[in-house]
């Protein structure tokens, strides 16, 4: 798939931006703060309905406005789809697909698929479990857009259950929420493990190519004892565990069991990567996770858009080459860099310079 046209209005530094885009590699060159990452961020927003840089929508809307607009024309190989998003600071966001308003933004998932590499990827290795959960959940949604609904329902059911636990008083309706948290949670855990089982061999192979000395692998660490690829088994296990931890949950006003408490354990040889791997090894692991997920999607028959946001300055010669050969294999790639000398000289594509919110062909 590829993006034919991107248009932004009141989005971050862009009062107005119209870009006609093509298949192949597009490179945006600009110093930090000139607005190059804002462009790829808006593309990722179309894919994930959230920014890869901020959890709140507020900074996306230009100061003094209530709404920012992102419009993208996506060619998925069969037809062209126009997606329009209105990001609002004072009310719910709105979206249209081919001019038709959608009832739920969830309908946008799957229309544009993208995988991104950014300096923040290092958080996959060094950051909190929430970073790794977000990584695997985004992959689930890319593979099966329906999962976006399951995850949203799960998150809301957990919030409802937590609110109820916090009241500590009348817990007569707790069982109703237990059932829903366990049902959605069981499905999410099963989907994560299924995807992880497919991702793992690719990940190990990719890592071995980058760094052959040690074997890298991943295991799923769950808040239930025997997590499996069968949703129903997980649901039963969650309900069992709820009985065990009931008192703790009431004490803390928190749901302590379910996929929102789980983690992906990254392993290098016999060690946990976190706190053990060197800076270079950490980068290799992060890079391998992203490369492997791109390959997994390709194996699914998908052609996600590839985004390489400001990563070249972080990487050595060999890893840069890995990314360039991936970029050459993708249907469409967007690259941002601060200076052209950070790019491998053999890289070809369409170059733009980005300066104080204006984008010009080089």
């Amino acid at each position, binding site marked *: 798939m590829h993006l034919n046209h991107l248009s932004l209005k009141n989005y971050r530094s862009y009062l107005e931006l119209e870009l006609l885009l093509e298949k192949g590699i597009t490179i945006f060159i600009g110093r930090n703060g000139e607005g190059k990452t804002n462009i790829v961020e808006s593309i990722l927003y179309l894919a994930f309905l959230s920014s890869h840089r901020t959890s709140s929508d507020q900074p996306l809307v230009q100061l003094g406005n*209530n709404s920012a607009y992102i419009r993208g024309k996506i060619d998925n190989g069969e037809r062209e789809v126009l997606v329009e998003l209105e990001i609002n600071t*004072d*009310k719910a966001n709105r979206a249209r697909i081919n001019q038709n308003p959608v*009832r*739920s933004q969830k309908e946008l998932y799957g229309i544009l698929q993208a995988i991104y590499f950014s300096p923040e990827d290092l958080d996959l290795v060094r950051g909190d479990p929430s970073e790794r959960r977000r990584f695997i959940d985004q992959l689930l949604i890319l593979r099966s857009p329906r999962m976006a*609904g399951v995850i949203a*329902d799960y998150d*809301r*059911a957990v*919030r*409802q*259950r937590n*609110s*109820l636990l916090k*009241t500590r008083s*009348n817990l*007569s*309706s707790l*069982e*109703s*929420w237990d*059932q*829903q948290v366990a049902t959605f949670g069981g499905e999410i855990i099963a989907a994560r493990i299924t995807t992880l089982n497919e991702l793992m061999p690719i990940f190990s192979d990719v890592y071995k190519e980058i760094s052959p000395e040690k074997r890298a692998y991943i295991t799923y660490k769950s808040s239930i004892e025997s997590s499996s690829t069968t949703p129903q088994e997980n649901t039963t296990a969650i309900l069992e565990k709820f009985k065990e931890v009931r008192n703790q949950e009431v004490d803390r006003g928190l749901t302590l069991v379910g996929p929102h408490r789980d983690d992906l354990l990254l392993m290098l040889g016999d060690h946990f990567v976190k706190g053990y791997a060197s800076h270079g090894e950490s980068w290799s692991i992060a890079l391998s996770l992203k490369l492997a997920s791109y390959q997994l999607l390709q194996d699914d028959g998908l052609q996600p858009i590839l985004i390489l946001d400001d990563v070249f300055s972080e990487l050595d010669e060999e890893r840069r080459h890995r990314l360039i050969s991936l970029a050459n294999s993708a249907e469409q790639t967007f690259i941002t860099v601060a200076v052209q000398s950070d790019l491998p000289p053999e890289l070809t594509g369409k170059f733009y310079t980005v300066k104080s919110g204006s984008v010009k062909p080089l």
Partner: protein
Amino acid sequence: MYEGAIQDLIDELGRLPGIGPKSAQRIAFHIIQSERVDVTRLVDVLRTVKERVKFCTECGNITEEELCRICKDPRRDGTLICVVEESKDVMSIEKTREFRGKYHVLGGAISPIDGIGPEQLRIRELMVRLANPDIAEIIIATDPNLEGEATASYLIRQIRPMGIKVSRLASGLPVGGDLEYADEVTLGRAFEGRRTVE
């Protein structure tokens, strides 16, 4: 910020559901530019609706009398009760003409985030109605979303020990939405194909 009365009007309109600050301002200016007679009619309607319309003492549906039209109708089957969240759901189901029993309007759904538990809904009133031995079946038609599901499963747990048949609307309703979004045919078929909860 405007001054005095106009800002008061914008603030009041802004409190209404689905009306943001911009719409509130637009409506306020529309009212200012309208003929006095039109505004008077709107004021009268607002006052009358608040004075006359109340909730049916039996089922909780909106009515201008003690009992609503449906509760008073002797042709309706009193052995069947359909439980819904809001009065507007009664309207949606009536349009399908598939249901000839009576209703019970809960006044919302369980949602701890909004501070709504079973005590805030008309569940105690429902239990009182169920003490009547003539009642043969309860059909739960809460919205097909998280809160509607939680409410349904709570009700099922409460009603089942009483030995009354409980059923849920058949699937096919748009998941995650409100009953009112379902078209009449879909909703009618959901009624027809309702399944008993074991």
